[in-house]
């Protein structure tokens, strides 16, 4: 028992260890003989057993003892306990499957260049249709279930939509406009109040599209800039990535 602490700092306490070793010398010799005799006996399927001893409190005598088998041995074969928390591994596996390029993860990572709460984002659907743009009220980070909440006004009615960022139906997410100053809240629920409501982001999206058309070099790139389908979205994401660099 007193040997265990030596394992951690074998050189730290050389003097005491040597003293202990001298005491153990006799013991080790005995052990050596015991081992030899063990090897002579026929091989047993039983692993080396520990004994759980129950000692009488008053008399300090051994009351009873039971053999306790090691938990890593099942039916004479070795087993190992599984890792305590498999959830991160599963999440990692799922994210790798749904986002092989890592673009979606990078867009909502906790980095300087990533999209943040308060930015105006535009989400395009895989099967085309009108992309949904809005101000990002919150980012719910839950591994593969990570989602964003966008708020916009459609026909003077406030509309909020949740998007799972790793869903295949979400073909692309683009940053239309960044918030000037970092939001000091994680969830901007106050932006639902009339005092803080941004209203419609239509004009912002319009201006952004116009700017892109101006800056786009190729003809094809300009035509697809509306983020119709996966190709356009990928291109847009590439731009996000380029900005970071």
């Amino acid at each position: 028992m007193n040997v265990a602490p030596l394992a951690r700092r074998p050189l730290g306490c050389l003097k005491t260890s040597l003293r202990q070793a001298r005491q153990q010398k006799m013991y080790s010799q005995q052990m050596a003989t015991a081992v030899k005799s063990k090897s002579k006996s026929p091989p047993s399927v039983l692993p080396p057993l520990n004994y759980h001893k129950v000692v009488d409190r008053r008399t300090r005598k051994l009351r009873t003892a039971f053999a306790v088998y090691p938990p890593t041995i099942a039916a004479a074969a070795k087993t190992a306990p599984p890792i305590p928390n498999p959830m991160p591994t599963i999440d990692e596996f799922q994210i790798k499957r749904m986002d092989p390029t890592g673009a979606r993860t990078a867009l909502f990572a906790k980095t300087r260049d990533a999209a943040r709460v308060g930015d105006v984002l535009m989400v395009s659907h895989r099967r085309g249709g009108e992309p949904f743009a809005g101000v990002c009220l919150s980012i719910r980070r839950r591994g593969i279930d990570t989602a964003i909440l966008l708020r916009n006004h459609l026909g003077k009615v406030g509309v909020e939509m949740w998007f799972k960022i790793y869903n295949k139906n979400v073909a692309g997410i683009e940053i239309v406009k960044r918030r000037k100053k970092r939001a000091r809240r994680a969830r901007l629920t106050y932006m639902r109040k009339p005092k803080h409501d941004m209203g419609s982001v239509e004009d912002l999206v319009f201006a952004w599209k116009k700017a892109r058309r101006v800056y786009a070099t190729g003809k094809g790139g300009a035509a697809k800039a509306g983020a119709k389908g996966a190709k356009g979205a990928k291109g847009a994401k590439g731009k996000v990535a380029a900005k970071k660099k």
Partner: protein
Amino acid sequence: MSTRLPAPRCWRQQLSLPLRPSSLRQFSTTSSLPVKSGWSTLPPRARPTRFNQPTSGLPLPTTGPAAALKRKAQSTPIRTGVLAIKKGMTAFMGRTGARIPCTVLQLDRVQTLLNKTRKDHGYWAVQVGLGARNPANVGAPMLGYYEAKGVAPKEILAEFRVRDENGLLPVGVELKPDWFYIGQRVDVRSNSRGQGFAGGMKRHGFSGQEASHGNSKNHRTIGSVGPSQGSGSRVLPGKKMPGRMGNERVTVQNLPILMIDNDLGIVVVKGAVAGPKGAIVKIQDAVKKPPPPKEFVEKTLAALKERFPKAEEHLQAAREKHLELKAARREKKLEELLGKKLWEPTEKQRKIVEDILAMEKGEAAGKEKRV
């Protein structure tokens, strides 16, 4: 296994013998049985009570243990299930954009401990254990049980009924997630979250009472519990009332398995499973679906045999060891038996001692050189 002692004789039987000798019964004028039952001078044991013998040509009895087992065979899975721990929920995102919520269940050193048989226990079942428990937190009777099985103390034990002897397994083997296959339907049983003492509205979905119209301090109460005098002025048994809610066993049937992983020890099932994270869950082949294909069952059994070829020898050795230790405990000779083995250094400890000795030698040699 400990040998069973003969059942102690009922004291009442012993007492009744001198009080009611058989010679008195002939002369007694009052009978304890009504007239319509008839009477007999034969002692009660000798009277034929079981007319419907297998040889009598009558139909098999539709009641009794054998009939009950036969009746339930249809709804009993052919193989045992496993214990698992609920680790949490996640989702699978499909290629078409579908999101499938799923629950992650982890198998931690799931081992078989006992086969229950029709002959000895009255039914077929497999006892299975999960996890590991500190032996200091296990009582002496259970320590003896684990000792006899050659298995480390388990966190929890549970029993899975199987249809017949074909469902029994070797003792001590570990069941891994590949006991099931992807796409298989399973039933998952666990205890739901306890909600504490809950009112009628939360517990049974009662509508409560109105907020106004003269209502006074009775907005969430259950109201009347039954009709009055004409109907007996009583509350019918089983009346839904406030009380403890939750923490009861919930079975979710026919959940498909989406993923299995032996390294992580996980089984991922579609949908939700009752209980909080860390809840202990029983997974077994679905009752209401056809059993797994024969080839698959054979494959899993072959895998068990391959992984644990020495299971039977191990069990036998453990039993012998247990009998030896048991005798020693009974005869108070434990100290003699364990005297040598009270503390055995592990390989690591032995190595450390050897290292230190070697170091000491080297140092001594160095000193000599210096001298």
